[in-house]
Structure formats: structure tokens, C-alpha cells
């Protein structure tokens, strides 16, 4: 009876140790991903160093599903730069090009008007009611580089959440059933 009890205990303890090791490994993976993301935020100076293009308003340059790399420096905003901005009250950032810039003497305050390359009209209709210009605090970053097609993963996952759950479930299953 004591021998069986000992064996059962040892089996249980191995399982627990293995489980804990796997949990710690998983935690390490998630944490290092987070560290890389935060480091990217620091290096590029913007809160979202990578964005996915969601609309076709910048075609044929940026199609839906491309990803853009952003930076934000203290350099003044000039026409032609592709800027990413948030309109007050909307949470989806918009990626368009600055077509008009008026910069004040001394204060450095700047009024910016943007327009999507593929749109016929400028963005005044997108801004908040009564707002005619964007200011520096609306702008989150400038696009400096891009990769095609990679963003489709994010779009699919946000539009069909089922796929997100399936992926996470499969990953979880892989981690649990792996022998190391």
C-alpha cells in the first residue's frame, strides 16, 4: 500500500513539474514577444510601430492587407509624407498623405490637411465636426517602409474571430502535448 502510494505520488509530482516547466516556457515566449514589441515602440518613437492597411484609399501603392512600418521623429511635418493619424472619437487609425501644411512662426504649431491617393476628395469629411486641419498631436507616425500581403493574417483574425480561437487552441494543444 505504501509502495503504491509512493508511486502515485511520484507520478503526480512529475506531471506537476512538467506542467509548471511548460507554463514557464510559455510565459517566457509571451514575455519576450512583449519585450520586443515595447522595444520597437521605444526605437521608433511611436505607439504603434507597425500598422495594417485596412482600406483601399491609398491604392495602388498600399493595398488592403499590407503592413506599414512607422516612425515618429521631432522633424516637422511636410507635404508628401504619409502620416498615420487618429481622429478624435474614432479608434481606427487612418493612413493618408499630407497635401497641405501651414506652419506657424515661432510656436511650431502646424495645420495639416491629408488625402488618400485613391480618393477624389481630401479628408475634411473624415475629421471631427468643425475640424478643418490636423495638428501634431493627432499624428501618430510617418510611414517609412512596407511589406505586402503580410497583414492579411491580422485582418482575417479580427474579422473572423473563430480563426483566432482555433489558432490559439491549436498552439495550446501543441505546447501541452509536446514531450519537452
Amino acid at each position, binding site marked *: 500500500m505504501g509502495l503504491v502510494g509512493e508511486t502515485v505520488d511520484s507520478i503526480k509530482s512529475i506531471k506537476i513539474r512538467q506542467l509548471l516547466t511548460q507554463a514557464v516556457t510559455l510565459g517566457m515566449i509571451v514575455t519576450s514577444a512583449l519585450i520586443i514589441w515595447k522595444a520597437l515602440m521605444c526605437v521608433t518613437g511611436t505607439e504603434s510601430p507597425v500598422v495594417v492597411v485596412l482600406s483601399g484609399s491609398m491604392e495602388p*501603392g498600399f493595398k488592403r492587407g499590407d503592413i506599414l512600418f512607422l516612425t515618429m521623429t521631432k522633424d516637422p511635418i511636410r507635404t508628401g509624407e504619409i502620416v498615420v493619424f487618429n481622429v478624435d472619437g474614432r479608434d481606427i487609425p487612418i493612413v493618408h*498623405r499630407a497635401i497641405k501644411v501651414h*506652419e506657424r*512662426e515661432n510656436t511650431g504649431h502646424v495645420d495639416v490637411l491629408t488625402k488618400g491617393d485613391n480618393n477624389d476628395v481630401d479628408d475634411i469629411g473624415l475629421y471631427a465636426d468643425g475640424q478643418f486641419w490636423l495638428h501634431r498631436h493627432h499624428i501618430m507616425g510617418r510611414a517609412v*517602409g512596407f511589406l505586402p500581403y503580410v497583414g492579411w493574417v491580422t485582418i482575417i483574425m479580427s474579422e473572423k474571430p473563430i480563426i483566432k480561437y482555433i489558432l490559439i487552441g491549436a498552439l495550446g494543444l501543441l505546447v501541452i502535448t509536446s514531450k519537452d
Partner: protein
Amino acid sequence: MHSFGYRANALLTFSLTALAFICAIASFSDNFSNQNPSAEIQIVNINRFKKQSYGNDEVSLTLDITADLQSLFTWNTKQVFAFVAAEYETPKNSLNQVSLWDAIIPDKEHAKFRVQTSNKYRFIDQGHNLRGKEFNLTLHWHVMPKTGKMFADKIVMPGYSLPDAYK
């Protein structure tokens, strides 16, 4: 160690890494291209020059734009976005840039062009400072690659000016 899952995982990781590496090299190769674009802009006519009801000046003009941007195209170029902007200074604003016309150039054949057009976007000042104003016309280009780093530059052409009186 040799199950389907492991092999699929290894294959996927390797192919993604290789793809990322190739994209990076393609983008890096853009640094070695020799670029010498040229452009010339003439103001054919000032069509309208008046003060709006809000008190802001507005100008409508016709431009003749000749440009050769063929040297900007590399094998990694998807399109070149070119636009002409007027730059000037006013007492209130240290810099005003107003885009007057833009075009998307999809390939090298279209990169050498001459176009005569009235301004696509309205040239409106913040205020009424445009009478007799001297301004620069700049041709900007923004090279959008098939993958990787985008780069932009411009040619500044100074010496244009607006008439002293409304028309």
C-alpha cells in the same frame, strides 16, 4: 522529432525567415541606384486670383510641367508618386506648403512626361497675403517599393510670383 507537426513548423519558420531576408536585401539594393531626375515648371496663366468671402486668398493657375523621372525606377519599384507644391512664407506662418497637382507613375515608360493642367487642389492661403507673393514650386517624388524602405526627395524651383492685384 520527425513528426508531421515538427516538420511543418520547421518548414514554415524557415520559409518565413528566408522571405524576410530576401525582402530586406531587395530593399537594401535600392541604395545603390544612381538617381538624377530633372524637371521644369512654367506658369502658363493665372486664371483667377481673388479673396474669398471668408477672407482667404485663392489662386487658380495653369501649370506646364515637364519632368524626367525615369532614373528613379529600380527593379524593386512599384510606383512613383509625384506632386507639385507651392511653398511660400507669410507674416503669420513661417512655412506654407500647398499641393497643387499630383500623379501616380506606375512604370518607367510613363516617367518622362509633359503635362499642362490647372491646379488639381485649391490654392488657398490662411489669410490674404498672396498679392505680389514670391513662391517656390517644388516637384516632390515618393518612391514606393515592391517591398521595404520608401524614400522621397524633391527639386526646388524658386522664383515664381503672383500678381500684385486681384484678378
